[in-house]
């Protein structure tokens, strides 16, 4: 079974037409891959569907705007994948 990162990278590649081999766990979705907030909604939609979760984008955005979190915590793909794993685990708990 593909890892969470692999699934996310495939979603990003297909949704945003970005070459898959340029997407790494260290990639920042916004700063490195140039994905804007509107395009990220399509990615969030695909992630929500694929993993059966609801990415808390509003909460994350608020935390970043309030200075309580950095974009790296949520939008560097290895960190995003970890957040997805946490949400999936919480769903099954």
């Amino acid at each position, binding site marked *: 079974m593909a890892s969470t990162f692999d699934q996310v990278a495939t979603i990003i590649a297909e949704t945003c037409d970005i070459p898959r081999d340029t997407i790494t766990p260290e990639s920042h979705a916004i700063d490195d891959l140039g994905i804007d907030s509107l395009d990220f*909604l399509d990615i969030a939609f695909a992630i929500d569907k694929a993993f059966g979760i609801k990415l808390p984008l509003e909460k994350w955005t608020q935390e970043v705007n309030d200075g309580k979190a950095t974009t790296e915590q949520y939008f560097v793909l290895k960190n995003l994948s970890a957040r997805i794993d946490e949400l999936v685990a919480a769903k099954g708990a």
Partner: protein
Amino acid sequence: MHLEYFQLIDRIAALDIGERTITVEAQVPKENTIFEGHFPGYPLMPGVLLIEAMAQTSGWLLIAHLKFERMPFLAAVKEAKMRDFVNPGDLLTIDAKLAHDGSGYAMTEANIRVGGKLKCNATLTFRHTPFPNADMRGHMEAMATKIGFPREAMAHG
């Protein structure tokens, strides 16, 4: 339908929050200055206004789904297809369903029919936020009353 005020929906015919669906009616006026230019001698309802009608229909569904606490704003239009002409005087039946309920955003699928025939359809994305101010909320409350928004449906949703 009051094109000058961008009020395209006349009446909510059905709203089912559990099923996440809505059906509305909208009467295209027989005469309007828009038709003098679009097009002279061959008046047609502009496709962009049909997309807006689907967006407003979806918007009322989302307002109900969000219990009248948040306002949806159109963010993206996908797969919009104008399948046939819509003419002055046509009575539109517009339906929408909530395809995805995300965090701060939602996606809907909407259709416009005339006499049962599918005229256009689209997949729409909205961002939604708390009402920006009391004026806007008040305006939407007044509009809701005007078009028969069934507030009791929210209580049972």
